[in-house]
């Protein structure tokens, strides 16, 4: 069994690596929760890259149903074809298209399946997938075919905790909560994105960033993706390093709410 040790583009904490490996060995889905911007989606990409496996992403929306992930039986197309005398109308198989989950099951080799933001869907959604994720198989009644995974995919599920997930579903998962990175880990993360960043700039940026995050009045705290963008803006604008903590230039990149920006401008000393 290959082990995941983080990758060139992804800095993971030791706990996260451990959880990822536990999930892979036990063949259970890995459920990742955490603040937005802590790199939940990136993790799956990093694992796929590190293990050299294909990644299949199933993005969940509020309208997504469990069935969509398994297969879609395109009745309308079949109806059209039958009216216009198309070929092979009596072959139902032709009108069954596999969803992302079905794709992962039928893949030639083991793949990584990312079910992204599972909490966006209806409350019942995770329950509808219990059997399929447990047994890694499902049945298509229209054709009488059973799709069974020949290589159990590594399943990674992310959630922003907008909805509670059902107990029965949680019971089957390995759970990991990504904490917001501390200063040192954040420095590592930044260095991955900007390998030749000046140390002085980095310290100043981190100081300002964590100071802003620590303000209790901030409604939407800036996250990792914002600090990355901010550094780019600072480098691009050629801002003097000494001004960063004092004036916080390009504040709009860090804070996305008017009230936060106003508040900061008023209280920043």
């Amino acid at each position, binding site marked *: 069994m290959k082990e995941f040790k983080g990758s060139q583009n992804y800095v993971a904490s*030791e*706990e996260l690596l*451990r*959880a990822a*490996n*536990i999930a892979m*060995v*036990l063949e*259970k889905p890995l*459920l990742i*929760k955490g603040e937005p911007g802590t790199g939940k989606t990136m993790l799956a990409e990093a694992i796929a890259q590190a293990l050299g496996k294909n990644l299949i992403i199933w993005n969940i929306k509020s309208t997504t149903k469990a069935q969509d992930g398994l297969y879609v039986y395109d*009745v*309308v197309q*079949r*109806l059209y074809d*039958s*009216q216009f005398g198309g070929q092979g109308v009596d072959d139902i198989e032709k009108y069954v298209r596999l969803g992302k989950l079905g794709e992962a099951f039928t893949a030639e080799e083991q793949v990584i399946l990312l079910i992204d933001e599972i909490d966006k869907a209806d409350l019942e959604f995770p329950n509808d997938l219990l059997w399929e994720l447990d047994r890694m198989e499902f049945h298509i009644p229209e054709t009488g075919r059973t799709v069974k995974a020949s290589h159990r995919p590594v399943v990674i599920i992310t959630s922003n*905790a*907008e*909805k*509670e*997930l059902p*107990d029965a579903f*949680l*019971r*089957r*998962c*390995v*759970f*990991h*909560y990504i*904490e917001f990175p501390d200063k040192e880990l954040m420095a590592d993360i930044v260095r991955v994105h900007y390998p030749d960043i000046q140390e002085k700039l980095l310290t100043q940026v981190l100081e300002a960033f964590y100071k802003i995050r620590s303000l209790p009045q901030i409604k939407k705290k800036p996250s990792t993706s914002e600090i990355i963008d901010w550094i780019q803006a600072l480098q691009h604008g050629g801002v003097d390093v000494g001004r960063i903590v004092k004036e916080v230039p390009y504040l709009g990149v860090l804070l996305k709410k008017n009230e936060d920006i106003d508040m900061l401008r008023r209280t920043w000393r």
Partner: protein
Amino acid sequence: MFEDFLYLLRSRGLKVSLTEWMALVQALHENLHQASFTGFYHLCRCLLVKSEADFDAFDRAFLDYFQEVDFQQEVSQELLNWLDRPNAPMGEYDEQQAELNESLSTLEIETMFQERKNEQREQHNCGNYWVGTHGMSIFGNMGLSPVGIRVGGQSQSRRAFRVAGERRYRDFRHDNTLDIRQLQVALRRLRQFSGLVDLPPSEFDVDSTIQDTANSAGLLKVRYKKPRQNTVKVLLLMDSGGSMEHYAQLCSALFQAVTRAGYFKELKIFYFHNCPYTRLYRDPTLNPNNAVPVSWLLSNLTPEYKLIFVGDAQMSPHEIFDPFPSPREGEPASGVDCLRRLRERYRHAVWLNPSDRPEWGGEWTESYDAIEGLFPMYPLTVEGIETGMKKLLAR
């Protein structure tokens, strides 16, 4: 083995089932904890705990079970001062010593630590025996030993099993007070889809129409379904002013969550001070020009409204029990009478309280208890709201 730990976790309210326990046993069998105690801690946590809100409870149970003492308090200040040197140079890593350290059991480390504490008379660093920093010793901080007890200092490599004692997840607990988003999520429990309610099917159902038409080989079959929307109507009554000033921020968060959701079929909000008497106010400043008689409310808002009170239920008894000087016909005769009428009209009612039952002033407790006797009372926290919402939906 340590089955007791399972029961300890369950007794602390963590819903650990046999499925998870068996997974843990299997994981231990496969050596996924890599024979280390910290590894064991992480393994237990990611298999047995399924929400960051439970991390704190888990940490405490883990500590209680595997360790009973808290070190920070039992070592002398002198020792802690010796240990406070975060920027000192690192000692040398010793492979043999590391292996030796790792072979020690928790209990052995514990006993050795007790001995050292009594023996040690001066500062010792970079070594492998005394409590010190930057060395191979199993005690101290900033050290290189793969296992051990951290004493003082900042966590560096986070190897020591004591990290559980830091209680870093305290803030995630459910009984914390909350922000708007959490409130919204909690309020979303309050839903009753008309699919469950008896309504005629009136909405055109595209999916079934296509399906059935196709199934009958193109002969059009039109299908309708029951409309699916939230049918819950909410009547929110909020205490304003006086002792409620302390909770202004919390109440404003609740207000924003309720109104912003746009989620209920109907939402009526009124304000009162301490206890509703004959009138309720439309704005929190309790402007008398913008008031509504309680009797109007009782006759115009149907009983299907879910009634949510928000208030601290703390007032002096005369404010709630004293009869009004000259009550008009058909209007409530006292504060408590008004509450009782509301309670009788709206069968689904809860009281959300931002404060605890007062422990001082017998009089205040009296009014609190009277109100609690009338309305099911829940704390104004995520957990409280969730239980409250469930109560509101119960038939």
